[in-house]
């Protein structure tokens, strides 16, 4: 009797464990890699039909895969490394279904590493797109995003340095020591900036050139509306103000022919109420290496003078960008967000931060530390 009960108990436990395991996995809709088509990049453009969007999918071809992995079981194949599928619809789902109809494999978004948004997208379309992308379960929230005014195909045109263009952009934006300005924005950061009050979206702008893609400009958005594209010089000022500057060089011909290299800076934004008035502060702290100077050795007074001059230059750059952003009413540095964090009750009193920001009193402080020894990276 006892034995039977024991076996009954074991059977029940085994069946329950199996059922629980079966029901908890959530793996049943997963498919093998062989049956999937990896979507490496997606591009979002306005369609010709009003109210519709065109979604482009960059997928690697078998020829591209075999030549990239360098080891194929089926032998080599020739052809372009990627092909681009297009789907048009009122929503991203419709566009996805339309693109899916042109391939016999499952379009898989689990390895999408790059998202490209046209600057011509309407604010409403961009909002809907970001919202929809946020809800796609298989889509990782870490792809890099960029804006462009060029067609998707030209941006995805073959880049000499990389077989698959999305991989090129992914590596470019994720490498901290590979770029002069750290302009990379991931999708979750974009989403965060769009839905967080008091800060506006800034996306790197891709500009295809004959020498390859140029990434030296940024597109400014107010909310989901595209406002303007900064020139390369303005973009450098934005990077200094936002603490994104990395490999910058400063030359002072009238100050002992001094050359400062590799400025890396940090920026801190603070907004608070002082004496009943809103007061914002932008503090920049940079480090640089004294690459060359006209005198054989530098004195402490020389270093102090150079440091002062360089700090003033950085502050000028930052002020110029702040003024520009205030002129266009784009809070790219997040002064409003800082106020919302430090004084949420006061921030909630302002119904529209964009009415406040152009008149915000911003003071900029800059300091620079000069390393006399080379710190070449």
């Amino acid at each position, binding site marked *: 009797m006892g034995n039977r009960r024991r076996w009954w108990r074991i059977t029940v436990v085994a069946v329950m464990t199996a059922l629980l*395991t079966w029901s*908890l*996995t959530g*793996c049943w809709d*997963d*498919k*093998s*890699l*062989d049956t*999937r088509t*990896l979507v*490496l990049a997606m591009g979002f453009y306005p369609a010709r039909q009003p109210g519709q969007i065109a979604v482009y999918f960059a997928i*690697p071809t*078998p020829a591209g*895969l*075999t*030549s*990239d*992995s*360098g*080891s*194929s*079981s*089926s*032998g080599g*194949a020739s052809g372009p490394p990627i092909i681009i599928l297009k789907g048009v619809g009122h929503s991203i789902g419709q566009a996805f279904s339309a693109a899916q109809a042109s391939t016999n494999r499952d379009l*898989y978004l*689990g*390895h999408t*590493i790059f998202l490209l948004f046209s600057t011509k997208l309407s604010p409403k379309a961009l909002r809907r797109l970001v919202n929809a992308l946020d809800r796609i379960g*298989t889509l*990782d929230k870490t792809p890099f995003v960029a804006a462009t005014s060029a067609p998707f195909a030209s941006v995805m045109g073959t880049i000499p340095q990389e077989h*698959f263009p999305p*991989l090129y952009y*992914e590596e470019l934006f994720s490498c901290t020591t590979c770029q002069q300005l750290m302009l990379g924005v991931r999708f979750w950061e974009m989403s965060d900036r769009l839905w967080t009050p008091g800060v506006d979206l800034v996306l790197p702008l891709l500009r295809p050139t004959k020498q390859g893609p140029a990434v030296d400009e940024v597109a400014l958005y107010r909310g989901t509306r595209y406002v303007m594209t900064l020139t390369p010089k303005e973009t450098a000022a934005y990077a200094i103000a936002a603490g994104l500057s990395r490999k910058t060089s400063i030359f002072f011909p009238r100050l002992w022919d001094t050359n400062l290299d590799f400025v890396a800076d940090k920026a801190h934004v603070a907004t608070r109420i002082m004496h009943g008035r809103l007061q914002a502060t932008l503090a920049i702290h940079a480090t640089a290496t004294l690459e060359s100077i006209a005198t054989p050795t530098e004195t402490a007074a020389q270093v102090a003078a150079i440091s002062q001059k360089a700090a003033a230059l950085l502050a000028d750059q930052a002020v110029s960008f702040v003024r520009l952003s205030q002129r266009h009413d784009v809070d790219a540095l997040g002064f409003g967000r800082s106020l919302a964090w430090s004084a949420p009750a006061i921030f909630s009193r302002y119904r529209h931060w964009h009415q406040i920001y152009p008149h915000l009193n911003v003071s900029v402080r800059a300091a620079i530390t000069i390393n006399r020894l080379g710190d070449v990276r």
Partner: protein
Amino acid sequence: MWPWSRQTRLNKTSQQSDAQKPGPHIKAGAARLTHSLNDTQSVLRSISGVDTALLKQLISQTSALNQELNALTQELNPHTSLDQFTGDIEAVYQRLQSGVGQSPDIIIRRFLMGDKAKIPAVLTFVDGLTDTQMIDQDTIMLAQQYDHAFTRHHDPQTIHQVVHDLVTASGHVTTETSWNKLMVKLMGGNTILFLSGSSTALVIDTVKYRARSLTTPTTERSVLGPQEAFNEVVLTQMNLLRMRIKSPNLRFDSLTIGEMSHTTVIVAHIEGLTNPELVAAVKRKLSVAKMATLNIGQELTPLLASRYHSLFPQVRRTERPDVVARELTMGKVAILVDNTPFAMVVPNTLADFYQTLEDYTMSFWGASLERLVRFLGLILGLLLPPLYIALTSVNPELLPTKLVITIAGSRVGLPLPPVMEVLTMWAIIEILREASLRLPKELSNTLGTVGAIVVGTAIVKAGIVSPLMIVIITLTALGLFTSPNYEMATPWRVLFWFLIALSYLFGLFGIILGLLAILAHLASLENFGVPYLSPFGPYRWRDLKDTFVRFPESSLTKRPAYLQPLDVTQSSHWHVDPMPHPQLGQAQKEEQHG
């Protein structure tokens, strides 16, 4: 059943032996049976037109049975037991001749002791298992020539004592009266000497086995350690251990297991060190062994393992005497089985199966590195293919994009899904492994190399599996055999399939579930009261110093706590350096000046 078949005869003999005091009717019954047998023989001889070979066999069988019965009836006495030797030397001779003497390897020799006394004696031994020089020179020759003792002692009942004390020159001589016990000793290689008039027979130790010479270990090789392995003779095994542990506290307790084989089993332990409860438990477990034959020590494993059906070995088998000696000095118990060149050591933990004596022949840096490599090999071997299946079939989103592209590129055009790829390759590996085990050594090396290269290259060229799979399976095959103990490779090879199935069904989630199940099972195992996961669970910092890594010798001063030895301290003087800086130059100066 044929009434005079061998089985019937054996049954009858056994029944007769069991009866300690047969009644007078047995003699009459035996006479009737003999008469009946004679009639049957004559009838069988008169039959014609049948299979003559069969008939001849029947006749010879009945003749042998007849002889045996005749010998029994001669010896039968209503006042004595059949199992007791009576002193009737002629009856003994007849009984031997008609019984074991029918086997060609049993030598039965009748002779007279003493030149003048001329006492009849019968000597029997197994040809090939005995030292004939000892029998010829130290027993028969001396007994025939030595007359003085026999003339002074006339009492036939004490004549065996005279031979024991004054005549035979053999080192080890005992006495025995039970016929059954005498036969067992005879089969064990001893020489039995029956003396007329004495009811006690002498058992002379003339055992000389045809033993294999000591060779280097084949299953547990060592680069810097001793190069000696056990052979099949239990006495040699004991000698090898005694050479390494010269303490009188090293005890060998003998048991005999196997109703037919009478195999000698030795329980080795160190008195005053090994926990006596452990020794008693081992003996108690072995004492319940009821088996007809014990051919190999492995047959005792079910008795020694607390959960025999577990995949994981709980009894460590080793052919290295140095390993056994070390384990004994740690407080474990070793079991030596005659005819088995592998000693068994209990109790064991999982970590024990990943330790070798080689670890102690090198610096703790090298030993620690080797141990970590072993565990790394295990993890790689066990998890690589399941991870490959999980990450390509169920959870590809967890792979870096570049790796996914590489894998996808290597899988372009392949007809088989990843799981079938793994199964195909693993089946090939298992076939190659099994074939190389069975083939002669010279061929197996060639087969292994050629098979791996040719099959691997061909199967990739044929587009059946990807090149990546060859890398994964090669690492798996090597990784699963990094365990220094061969037995430990088997459970992982079985669990490999379990994890493959789980990874295919549930992906990474399944692998983690499987690993948790394995861990739970390991945690539940216990061998002679020692948790299998000791010293990790229960956690004991002191014993962790000799597990994944090996700490320096100076910190390994205590024996494992989980064995609960009577003497915990292993070495206590590591911190004392009597001469840290010997003054070599001083001696040189004194020599020059002096």
